[in-house]
Each structure stands twice: as C-alpha cells, then as structure tokens.
C-alpha cells in the first residue's frame, strides 16, 4: 500500500503538484489519469523517488520514504519494478540479459536458478522465443512485454507503469493492460499506472486518481466514473465523440 500525504512540487515559479493526497491499494491496478501537463509523470517520479517533492509524505506500507537513509532507499528500490514509457530496455543487451540483469545484480541464487527465473518471466509475458533478440529487433508491444518481464523478475512488491500503452495499437494495449492486471493479482503487488488511455481506464481501473492542474480532482473506480457528476472528469473522460456516444447509449 502506498499513501501520499500533502505532496507539493514546483519547478521555479510553476506549481506542478498541489497538496495531493491519495491512497494506492494492494493487489489493485491503481491508475493516475489526467490531461497532458496535469502532473501525472511528476507525481509518478515523486512516488518512485526520481524527483524529491517540496513537501509532504510518501508512505510505503506506513513508512515515509522521504525520511529514508540512502541505504533504506536502495533497499526499497529493490522492491520496485518499473515499466517506462519508452520501455528503457538496455539496448546493448539481449532480452534475456535484460530480464536477468536485476537478478545478476542482486540475487544470490545460482546461475541456473537465475536463468530459470528469467525464462519464467519471459514465458509469463509470452516472449519465450525472444530471449536472444536485441531490444531493437522487437516491436513496440514486445518491448513493453520484455520490460514487464524485467520489472517483475525480482518479484517486486510495487510495480509502476508510466504510460504503458503509448505508441501501441488498441489491441496490443489491451494485451498489455490485462497482463499488468493479472501480474498484479498473482503477485499481490501494489501497482500504479500512469495513463491517459481511456481503454485502460475503463478496462482495468480499479482505483483511479484524476489529476487536474496538479491537484487531485477525483478518486474512484471505473464503475464510479459513469455516474460521477464531476464536470472536469467528464470533460476529460468523454472528450471524444466516440466516448460521448458510448455514455449516451449507457444512459439510455
């Protein structure tokens, strides 16, 4: 469980995050949504510790990360897996080497066991045969799946996904979403997904935080969205003609 308390962050004069409070629950797919520039990525970077917030608390299972020593921060990070927007696979390594990297770095298991775990992770994301390929030889969807395999190789307690569907076609996006949801449940992880893909919101949004100009505007599940009277949320969710039509059909 990850809890944010009064998170503020500004860059020079611009307030990017303003008093953000929210709770991300265990074994659920938690989504942060909002328009471009609403502060989603900054919030995600604060949560994972890539950016230091100006004030507030980020509690991992009750412990404030911001008061951790360097050693404690390293320990916490070893319980994190992250899927980056551009996959961020190490392009000088094969897919298998990428997945094995965290294990090689931190696991005390034998080479055989590490290899077995890496192969299991690749099998789990349906990339059994891509182990010897370089990231540049994979499609966008396959790169995302390889990145998921790397993120879960150390069996993390927390999984972070920054725009997992960017640049993917709708069908592949659904595959990635389902994969993240299944892995979250299987491993009882706390997963936070940063997205503005409405298919993801309506497909796997079990706990959704809507950011508007750096403030938490709304929080609820995908089922709550349909009945929410929040105008800003509705303007964002039902921005396209297709989704407006969908709502009208739903209301009828």
């Amino acid at each position: 469980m990850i809890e944010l308390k009064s998170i503020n962050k500004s860059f020079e004069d611009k307030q990017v995050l303003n008093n953000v409070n929210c709770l991300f629950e265990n074994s659920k797919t938690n989504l942060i949504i909002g328009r471009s520039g609403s502060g989603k990525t900054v919030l995600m970077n604060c949560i994972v510790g890539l950016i230091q917030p100006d004030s507030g608390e980020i509690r991992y299972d009750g412990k404030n990360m911001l008061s951790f020593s360097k050693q404690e921060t390293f320990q916490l990070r070893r319980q994190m897996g992250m899927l980056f927007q551009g996959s961020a696979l190490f392009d000088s390594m094969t897919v298998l080497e990428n997945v094995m990297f965290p294990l090689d770095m931190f696991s005390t298991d034998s080479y055989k066991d590490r290899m077995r775990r890496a192969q299991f992770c690749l099998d789990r994301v349906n990339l059994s045969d891509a182990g010897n390929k370089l990231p540049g030889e994979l499609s966008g969807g396959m790169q995302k799946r390889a990145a998921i395999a790397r993120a879960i190789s150390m069996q993390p307690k927390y999984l972070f996904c920054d725009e997992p569907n960017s640049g993917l076609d709708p069908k592949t996006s659904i595959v990635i979403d389902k994969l993240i949801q299944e892995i979250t449940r299987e491993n009882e992880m706390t997963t936070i997904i940063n997205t503005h893909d409405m298919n993801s919101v309506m497909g796997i949004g079990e706990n959704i935080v809507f950011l508007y100009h750096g403030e938490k505007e709304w929080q609820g599940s995908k089922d709550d969205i349909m009945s929410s009277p929040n105008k800003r949320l509705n303007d964002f969710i039902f921005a396209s003609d297709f989704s407006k039509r969908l709502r009208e059909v739903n209301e009828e």
Partner: protein
Amino acid sequence: MVLINWLVAFGKYLQMLGRVFRRPDRMRMFLRKFYAEVFQLGIDSISIVLVISLFIGAVICIQFKMNIQSSWMPAWVPGYASREIMLLEFSSSIMCLILSGKVGSNIASELGTMRVTQQIDALDIMGVNSANYLILPKVAALVTIMPVLVTLSVAAGILGAYTIVYIGHIGTVRDLTIGMQYSFNQWFFWMGVIKAMFFGFLITTIASYYGYNVKGGSVEVGKASTNAVVTSSILILVTDTFLTQLLS
C-alpha cells in the same frame, strides 16, 4: 556569473565522483563491464593510436632531417629528437587529445542516450548505483589500458621514423639508431605513462559527467558530446603544463 556556473559544475562533478568511487554492488558485474570497456575504449583505440603515431614519428624524423638539421648538428639528432618527442609529449599528451575526441565523445553520447531513453532511470529504480555501475568500469578500463597505448604509441612512432629513413633514404639507419639510443632516460617513459593515466582519468570522468547529466533529447546529447571533448581537451592541456613541471 561564468565563475559561479563553473563552480556549480565542478561541485556536481565532485558529487558524481563521490557516487562513482564506491564499492561495486556486485563485483562479478563490475568485472564483466570492465572487460567490455577495456575492449571498447582501449583495444578498439589501438589502430588509431598506431596509425597516427606511425606517421607522426615519420614526420618528426623528416622535419628534423630535411628542415632543421644543419652542418653543425650531429647526424643522430633526428633519431634523438623523434624519440624524445614521442616519449615526452606525443605518446602521452597529444595521443590523449586524440583519444579525448574518440573515447570522450563515445562515452558522452552513450551515457547521454541512456539518460534520454530513461535507461539510467531504470537502473536507479532497480536500486543500482547507476553512476558506479556505468562510469567506474570506464574509468578503470581506460586508466588500466593507458600504459599499453602509450607503449604502443612510442613503439609505432619509432617504427615510423625507421620506416621513413629506410624507405625515404633521408639518412642512415645507423645514425637513427645512435640517436634513438643516445642519452636515454628511462624516467621519460614513466613520466609519459603517468601523465597518460592521469589524462585517461580526466577523459572518462569529464565525458561521463556531461553524458550522465544530459537533460532533453538528441540535440542535448550532441552538445554534451561536443562539450565533453572541448572541456577534456582544454583540461588535458592545462594539467599537462602542471604535470610536466611536477614530474620533470
């Protein structure tokens, strides 16, 4: 303002070094990366070092023989001068200036690209000390391989001088050999090695600093690469002055 910017950059550089010079998280991974860097930064540079040193050795010999030597100068002077120039300056300082272009831009663009494609962020998120994992093997590899490069450069320069004397008929091999052996001071070789190792440290750490701290996209990676080469070249020349004074 320029001074303040320079001091801020120097402070960040020292902070980065503080993160780099730590015990590696996993020695096995460090050694794997170290061997790879020895090949990428060192072994892959041997050909350019040999080619340039060979021709510079030959050119120094030609210049002394054709343009500087006069009747009052002994015939062995071109050999003597070729050896001393190669040992004292070319194989350490000038070769490192060339390497700062090849190796420095390579390091800055590699780390810069890793930064903009979030590969360094991925390392940080995993709990890896990214500066230590990425930069320490490069520094260790280039500093380790530098004595080899200096030795090869000196040897290639001397070979170049012999080659031009033999092929170009600009003197006798005997005179050149007498010059090469005249008043040899072994310390000059070690001075070149020490200077080159120091420059190797400068090239890798400065290029890593620029590459590691890139913000933005491909344009910034290009700028970082250029800045790395310019800064390390200037610092090599400045420190060369002090080191030469100190070691002489």
